[in-house]
């Protein structure tokens, strides 16, 4: 139990270091004087900009050695002081709070929908390998994995909101608007998890204990529910850890596509606008979201199969 927590905490630390270091480097490498840029962002480009820049340089200590500045930057990260957005001037932390909420809702609903689609198809295909469900499932999985998420999103937008008019194509506010982006992500996730589930269910269905449960006369439903699902769930849940990558990357793409005001949307905007404190903040939060999902998956795996904990 403690082992995986320590590992995930270390991962979180590495995420902060990498994001911090890259953004710090970005601040240095971008053309122009950093103090001048910040001054212009704060007070607007007026005639006294040079004096303002000197003040900023003194205030933020931009004239000191680079290493010292980097350490201070990291210290700020630890205190959750992410600075101010260069564009809006608001504290980055405040903006992140709003966006994080929206993104977490999106990711959670996508995961939920994908769990309703993928494993269900997987169980039905795995119970009869080679059957019609299995083959359709395979074809569906191959097709959905070959469609880039943004194309899938566009296709869904056209079918569900333009042709059928069921759902709004973009926006934010009511639960109706979350459906399309969440469904886009969920279909991609389900395409992968359905095959993993299918393989693991097929493997469990071949085991002696499964045959024994049948031979001793248990009804099929109980055999599947008691002896099948939990055992088959272990690889599926550990695979969710890999899907966390897809989910976090997908959030960036899908949010931009559907104009959904979450972290990923903010990250893309910050990159286009070169708003470095925002880039740092959003990248950091998304990286940590990834770590958090992975930690959650660890915990569920442990609950499903306590042997992991004893072995560690």
């Amino acid at each position, binding site marked *: 139990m403690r082992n995986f927590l320590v590992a995930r905490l270390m*991962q979180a630390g*590495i*995420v902060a*270091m*990498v*994001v911090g270091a*890259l*953004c710090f480097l*970005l601040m240095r*490498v*971008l053309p122009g004087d950093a103090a001048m840029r910040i001054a212009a962002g704060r007070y607007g480009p007026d005639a006294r900009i040079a004096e303002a820049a000197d003040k900023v340089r003194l205030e933020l200590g931009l004239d000191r050695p680079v290493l010292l500045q980097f350490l201070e930057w990291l210290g700020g990260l630890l205190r959750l002081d992410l600075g101010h957005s260069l564009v809006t001037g608001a504290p980055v932390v405040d903006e992140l709070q709003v966006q994080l909420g929206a993104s977490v809702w999106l990711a959670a609903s996508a995961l939920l929908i994908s769990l309703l689609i993928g494993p269900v198809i997987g169980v039905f295909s795995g119970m009869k*390998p080679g059957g019609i469900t*299995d083959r359709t499932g*395979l074809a569906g*999985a*191959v*097709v959905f*994995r*070959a*469609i*880039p*998420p*943004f*194309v899938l999103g*566009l296709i869904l937008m*056209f079918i569900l909101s333009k042709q059928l008019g069921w759902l709004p194509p973009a926006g934010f506010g009511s639960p109706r608007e979350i459906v399309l982006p969440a469904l886009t992500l969920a279909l991609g996730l389900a395409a*992968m998890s359905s*095959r*993993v589930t*299918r*393989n693991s269910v*097929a493997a469990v269905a071949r085991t002696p204990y499964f045959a024994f449960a049948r031979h001793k006369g248990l009804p099929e439903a109980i055999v599947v529910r008691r002896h099948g699902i939990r055992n088959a769930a272990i690889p599926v849940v550990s695979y969710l850890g*890999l*899907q*966390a*990558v*897809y989910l*976090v*990357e997908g959030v*960036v*793409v899908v949010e*931009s*596509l559907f104009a959904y005001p979450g972290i990923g949307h903010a*990250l*893309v905007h*910050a*990159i*286009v606008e*070169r708003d*470095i404190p925002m*880039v740092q903040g959003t*990248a950091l939060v*998304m*990286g940590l979201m*990834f*770590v958090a999902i992975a930690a959650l998956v660890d915990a569920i795996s442990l609950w499903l199969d306590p042997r992991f904990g004893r072995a560690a």
Partner: protein
Amino acid sequence: MSTIDNVSPARGRARLSGSCASGAALLFLLAAFALLGPVLIPADPAAQDFSASLAPIGGDYALGADHYGRSLLARLAHGARLSFGLAFLTMLAAAVPGVLLGLAAAWRGGWTERLLELLATVVLALPGLMLVLLLLAFSPGNYGPLFLGLSLTLWVEFYRVTRAATKTVLAQPHIEAARMLGFGSGYILRNCVLPVIAPTIATLAAFAMATAIIAVSTLSAISVGLQPPTPELGSMIVELLPYYAEAPVHVLLPAMLIFLLVLGLQLVAEGDRA
């Protein structure tokens, strides 16, 4: 990037080679289009002709023209070459160091291995696309950071698989025998290890290329990748999207091309794995 989806179901060998063959045929056709197209098609993919804006398919323009009247056929061919070429280069830039470092880690062990493992952990701590996005922030719209970011995230997979597979091979008795017979490390790695891990590496390479193609088109589509005048498939879709009502097929063409590219690569990869 999620190249690691081990989703291949246990299927019959005959059907697997079938999927591999169809994937290879598909890839061959697309590669021919991507390589020969830009050479054989005389039209400039950037030449505008406003009188032919959104020209229909089959007229003066074989596959129609986009909203600026640029030949779609030429743009698709150049876009395919760009996607294919960039994906291939990215794959090479990821596979070569990945495999070499994996071999080095498995062979040398000790500090070399520990340092490389640390490096891999650092790269894997962040989702791949995030690393690419962070690097793209340095200069949005350029090939450099895109290429660098993608290969930086993709090499880890090659490294880890090579290291693990090589370790298993190196522990076997025939390697020990080869060592005792006095064969050099280079000879053993080349002749006893590489042939064993080559099929796995080929699978990974196909997946890496598929990932790279999806990533490049996606990043352009959300306007942080390559910038509009470049005939890039992802940005072509997004540019043509507002004209969907007038010319739906024009939007579908680049989308189909990406889909077929990725599908071909995945079929080949699935086939290889058997």
